[in-house]
């Protein structure tokens, strides 16, 4: 194991996969010379050259569209969208084409491509640059959606995504890039898509989370332990495929669930998770499922009130206490 940041873990995954397979290429806005807005592509141009590491014009729809064509043409593109907010400009390519081409062609083509996109709120970037759009992609069949929380998962999932023959939306959290963690040294250590992980075991209540929310949930769990509440934290790791078994088993054990999502509450993925828990764990539930989500507003620019719109350790802990005390 080596300690590294989430950013370096992603960078390592890209390097390892590009070394392993010459068909892996990467492109996007400012990814080559500039090494990416968040420096995830550091050193790639120097090592792999202009053929495989390319700056594109500012054309998000085409960045995804070209990746689709290139994937059908035998490459394994890893496209970077500067932020997930610009994925909205590529939504037609993502939803109408990337997600469907394989099935509409009766499986005659594969789409081994990854679209990497940093996102999430909390960096004071205003309403159009702070969104958590994971539900948008998760909603659409035909797209894998990866949402790693830790450096090890970031590396393992990105490697698995690059090797996968289906398109993957790979959603990185901007506030996690500098976070550190242990990463296995074995270059063949992958994290499979569609496998959640129990990041902390507990017996009283299950917190289901993903991406940065997992980190906050773990912090909340540590706080709550001091109050005698034992939380199990399930990190989904991918939203699509969604590993329902792991959290269903956990809720069946604890009898209580809090689901945490960074996105807006209306039609957010927390509602989907809560409905699965209601369907599968009804007999075992000791309390209604509680959702913790972002507020239903465009993200305010002001740093102070921005915080109020995003779940915090304290809001997660408060939801757990409510569930434990039967106060809803």
């Amino acid at each position: 194991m080596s300690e590294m940041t989430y950013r370096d873990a992603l960078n390592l995954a890209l390097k390892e996969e590009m070394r392993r397979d010459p068909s892996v290429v990467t492109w996007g806005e400012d990814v080559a010379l500039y090494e990416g807005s968040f420096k995830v592509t550091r050193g790639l141009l120097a090592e792999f050259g202009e053929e495989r590491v390319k700056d594109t014009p500012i054309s998000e729809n085409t960045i995804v569209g070209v990746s689709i064509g290139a994937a059908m043409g035998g490459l394994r593109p890893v496209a970077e969208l500067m932020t997930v907010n610009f994925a909205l400009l590529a939504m037609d390519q993502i939803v109408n084409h990337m997600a469907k081409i394989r099935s509409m062609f009766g499986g005659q083509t594969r789409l081994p491509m990854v679209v990497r996109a940093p996102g999430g709120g909390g960096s004071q970037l205003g309403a159009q640059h702070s969104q958590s759009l994971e539900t948008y992609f998760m909603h659409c069949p035909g797209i894998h959606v990866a949402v790693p929380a830790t450096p090890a998962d970031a590396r393992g999932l990105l490697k698995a995504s690059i090797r996968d023959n289906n398109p993957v939306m790979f959603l990185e959290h901007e506030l996690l890039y500098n976070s550190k963690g242990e990463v296995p040294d074995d270059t063949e250590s992958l994290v499979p898509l569609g496998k959640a992980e129990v990041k902390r075991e507990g017996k009283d209540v299950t917190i289901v989370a993903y991406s940065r929310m997992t980190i906050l949930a773990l912090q909340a769990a540590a706080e709550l332990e001091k109050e005698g509440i034992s939380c199990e934290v399930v990190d989904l790791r991918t939203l699509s495929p969604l590993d329902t078994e792991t959290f269903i088993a956990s809720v069946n054990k604890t009898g209580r669930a809090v689901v945490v999502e960074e996105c807006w509450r209306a039609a957010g993925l927390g509602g989907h998770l809560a409905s699965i828990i209601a369907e599968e764990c009804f007999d075992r539930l000791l309390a209604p499922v509680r959702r913790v989500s972002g507020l239903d507003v465009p993200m305010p620019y002001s740093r102070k009130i921005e915080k109020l719109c995003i779940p915090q350790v304290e809001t997660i802990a408060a939801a757990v206490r409510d569930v434990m005390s039967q106060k809803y």
Partner: protein
Amino acid sequence: MPESILATFTVKRLEIIAPDGTADESLVPDLSGDELRRIYYLLLLTRAFDGRALALQREGRIGTYPSVLGQEAAQVGSAFAIHERDWVFPSFREMGAHLTLGYPLHQLYQYWGGDERGLRTPDGMNIFPICVSVGTHIPHAAGAALAAKLRGDRIAVIAYFGDGGTSKGDFHEGFNLAGVMGLPTVFICQNNQWAISVPLSAQTASRSLAQKAVAYGFDGIQVDGNDVLAVYRATREALEKARGGGGPTFIECLTYRMSDHTTSDDASRYRSPEETEQWRERDPILRYERFLAKRGLWNEDYAAEMKGKAGGEIDEAVRRYESVPPPAPGEMFDFVSGELSARQQRQREEASP
């Protein structure tokens, strides 16, 4: 049948003031001495605004900020031709246009200070919110021009964007529609030759950006973006044409981004200091000073006086900006939609202390 030539085209370039300040008199716009001096003041004010913004950012008193250094002439010159009733759709790097149009300075600081209330345009001013998404407001300008045309309102609608914006689908689609419908739009590109780390040559294989207009069926012109009078003249003609029903025009202002992309960037990582130095010699304010001096409208004392005046205006704007109380948490719900849902109302109450 033999091959024949279907179309050829030419692209005009306009430059009025030479770097030494001499001008082609036949092209100098008919502006009074006061107006010429007003333009000078606006250039100084823009530079002072910008310099102070950079200083405030370093002190943590505003957030990430995109400098307009070097682009003052392209912004002031174009905005000086805009009438009060025209509509303007800016991108994020046109603070000089805002200042010229009379947008309150303190609100610009407020916006870049992380408070979107700074975008609430004062009554009677037709300036739309700063568009940080690249190029996405080009169709909005076409739509506003369509509405003006249908209303029978003889105004022009202006969209500002950068060279990077010309790579967007929105650019193609907005231009195409404006051309097809003959809309009263004036598209102004600040070609500062960089889009973050990507140089113009990696953005387009076109010889100029101006020529792209030809394919959409309207005029495109490249102007020396560091020549304030050339920018003014081209914009005024395009606006008059638009207001008179002559359809859209595309103006490419060839200029240079002297600063980093924003305060979060370090341009020395991807471009040479020599390149930037070369452009320093083409400084738009210096050139205009030489022009004014030749007409007896400028000397060192006058410059010092005007710089002092601009500095005073900026001091006042900063003072006003910093005396505005921060938004209350509940305010974020104010304009989310006509009526809040019960859940939003509850969220609002919970967010309010």
